């Protein structure tokens, strides 16, 4: 029942070769016309305001051109006019499904430039909240990829299970979506009473939810038929485009910045496995994220057991003035590699910040990848790449 996609062409083959090849096989010269279809910017499958202009031949895509920028807020210009604590509020909104994870590398950059290090308890709490953000966004992904492929029910389960984690984050930080909790030198507040036990309960629920998703979605024959062999990213091409995170790991590249990059937060002390899958298709991307959700649950349990007591804020002056210098911090955001290149000139705000967001590069591979696929497969591929518009458009 499953069909194989046409072999992926090299980087520089004319995509129109598909149509003439098919005609030649039929022995007919059909005078068919192409249709240009706009998927978006308002479309349920594009996760936000992404516009995909595709040229179709029947149901096959000949060429695709993503048009982005509908949500461009001009972060790199805005941060030149703000102080570091003000910027923390802004950058929450880059990847809004895992907001806490966006703040961490920027605060890390400011702290490196200042020579300040957050106390161990703050580092542990930051790691726990980063992993909880990762769990919350991946659980949503597990549900809504089923929705994009046609199964209506897993999406609701995804949202329902995400609620548990988001409630946890809210009880610590006060914000479900935009915690704005990091401060240069540590955190704003300590954990509330009873939070650790509640987290353990929630993690158990998420663990069970992963089993449900594995059964209901990943184990479904139709889901497998729709996603296996669809949207294969060869590892070299993926890396050359800058595709990172679970997308690259699903192509077999064993690279995780928590383990392989410059040490940050508490990850050097944690014992965790990096999951890869050799296939590189949409099913592999789903599978890798499923395993990473479970892995994150285990990591949070380790962190809860090992968390030290102590202060949560280092001694920093009231007005944060960061000395001159430049620094690059990169982390393993749930969406991929997220990095900040901060240039500082000694003021209370940075001189220039280059925000490297993961989805920007993940989406840049679409023109290459979408040639020759069917329209329903376009939707599957978009869902499996898992980008957030705020991350693409900054």
């Amino acid at each position: 029942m499953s069909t194989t996609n046409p072999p992926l062409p090299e980087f520089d083959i004319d995509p129109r070769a598909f149509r003439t090849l098919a005609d030649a096989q039929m022995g007919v010269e059909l005078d068919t016309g192409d249709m240009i279809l706009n998927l978006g910017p308002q479309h349920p499958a594009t996760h936000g305001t992404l516009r995909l202009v595709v040229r179709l031949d029947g149901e096959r895509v000949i060429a695709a051109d993503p048009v982005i920028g509908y949500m461009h807020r001009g972060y790199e210009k805005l941060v030149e006019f703000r102080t570091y604590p003000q910027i923390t509020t802004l950058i929450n909104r880059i990847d809004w499904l895992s907001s806490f994870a966006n703040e961490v590398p920027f605060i890390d950059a400011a702290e490196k430039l200042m020579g300040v290090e957050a106390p161990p308890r703050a580092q542990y709490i930051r790691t726990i909240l980063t992993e909880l953000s990762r769990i919350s966004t991946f659980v949503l992904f597990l549900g809504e990829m089923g929705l994009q492929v046609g199964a209506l029910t897993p999406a609701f389960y995804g949202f329902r299970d995400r609620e548990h984690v988001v409630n946890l984050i809210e009880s610590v930080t006060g914000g479900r979506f935009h915690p704005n909790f990091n401060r240069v030198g540590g955190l704003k507040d300590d954990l509330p009473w009873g939070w650790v036990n509640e987290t353990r309960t929630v993690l158990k629920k998420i663990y069970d939810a992963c089993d449900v998703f594995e059964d209901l979605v990943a184990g479904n024959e139709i889901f497998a038929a729709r996603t296996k062999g669809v949207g294969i990213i060869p590892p070299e091409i993926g890396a050359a485009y800058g595709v990172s995170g679970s997308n690259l790991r699903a192509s077999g590249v064993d690279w995780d910045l928590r383990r392989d990059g410059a040490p940050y937060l508490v990850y050097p002390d944690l014992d965790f496995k990096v999951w890869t899958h050799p296939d590189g298709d949409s099913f592999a991307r789903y599978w890798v994220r499923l395993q990473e959700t479970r892995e994150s649950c285990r990591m949070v349990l380790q962190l809860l057991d090992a968390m030290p007591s102590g202060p949560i804020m280092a001694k920093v002056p009231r007005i944060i003035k960061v000395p001159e210098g430049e620094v690059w911090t990169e982390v393993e955001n749930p969406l991929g590699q997220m990095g900040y290149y901060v240039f500082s000139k000694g003021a209370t705000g940075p001189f220039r910040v280059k925000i490297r967001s993961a989805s920007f590069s993940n989406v840049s591979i679409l023109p290459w990848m979408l040639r020759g696929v069917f329209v329903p497969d376009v939707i599957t591929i978009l869902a499996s790449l898992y980008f957030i518009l705020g991350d693409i458009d900054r």
Partner: protein
Amino acid sequence: MISLAVDIGWGTTLAIKTLVILMIVPATALILGYTFLLKMMSHMQSRLGPMDPGGFHGWFQLVGDGMKFMQKEDIMPAQADRRVFAMAPMVVVVSTFLIFLVIPAGPDIVVKNLNVGVFYALAVSSLSVIGVLMAGWASANKFSLLGALRAAAQLIAYELPLLLAVIGVVIQASTLNLQGIVLHQSAGSIFGFDGLGNPYILTQFVGFALFMVAAQAELTQTPFDMPVAESELVAGYMVEYSGFRFLFFFIGEFGTAFAFAAIAATIFLGGWALPASWGLSVGAMRFIGPAVLFVKIMFVAFLMFWVRFTYPRLREDQLQALAWKVLIPIGLLNIVATAILKVAM
């Protein structure tokens, strides 16, 4: 024909029958829609569904929706083909109404007991393809067109498995008449045991499975809802329809679901009849029959909607491959086996 004490003329009978059908079809659509789409789907998705309208678990929701649709502004795309755009929902709904004419609900509760009942029902249900194509083309919208073309290919492809599934039953019952099929099942016996009659689902289980799959595809329900793929085409061929035109499509969709469930209940589960060995009189069956049929229909519809809310959708080429390469050969084999066994036993 129901014989009443008073002799009402042919015209009045026709008018009564027409009115009954016109009222029943939307009512069945509402019942199915409420029970399965609003309540069962919601509970499967760990939410409650409508709770307020009408007080008790929101039973009034769809009636209220219907009234809302009736009073909406009639919007038509500027470049749409006006006449075809307006006629398309009518074609779909008319095809639904026509199916209900032959479904028996009691010993003589049927609008017209055609001798070619099964043949007529299947023939008339395929008229909706034309309506879908008209809707997709006249909407002047590329997404609608994509949806309509997918629908045309799919609906035509799945006519065949539907037909082949039913032929097995026809061979076993030796008649195309739906009342005849019901009575054969009621009066039959399984290897001499006649406590349950002989519902053809027992011998025609392959046919039943085939019919359910093909009916799911005919109704463009997941896993075969490519024409209406919500996350891609956002209602496909129906996307430009709003207000009472959309209401017609909705009634057509759920009414046809009810009709197909009714046909399945009739030819596989025994329809309105209880086993004849239970010794109920014809007069009693006139009252119990519709209720029995309703219960059986609800069971079949439960299966259809359960699958609808669980499975993802098949891609168009996978869908066609399933129909032509898997279902049709199985249907043909089923017919061969049934014929052999019918002659041999």
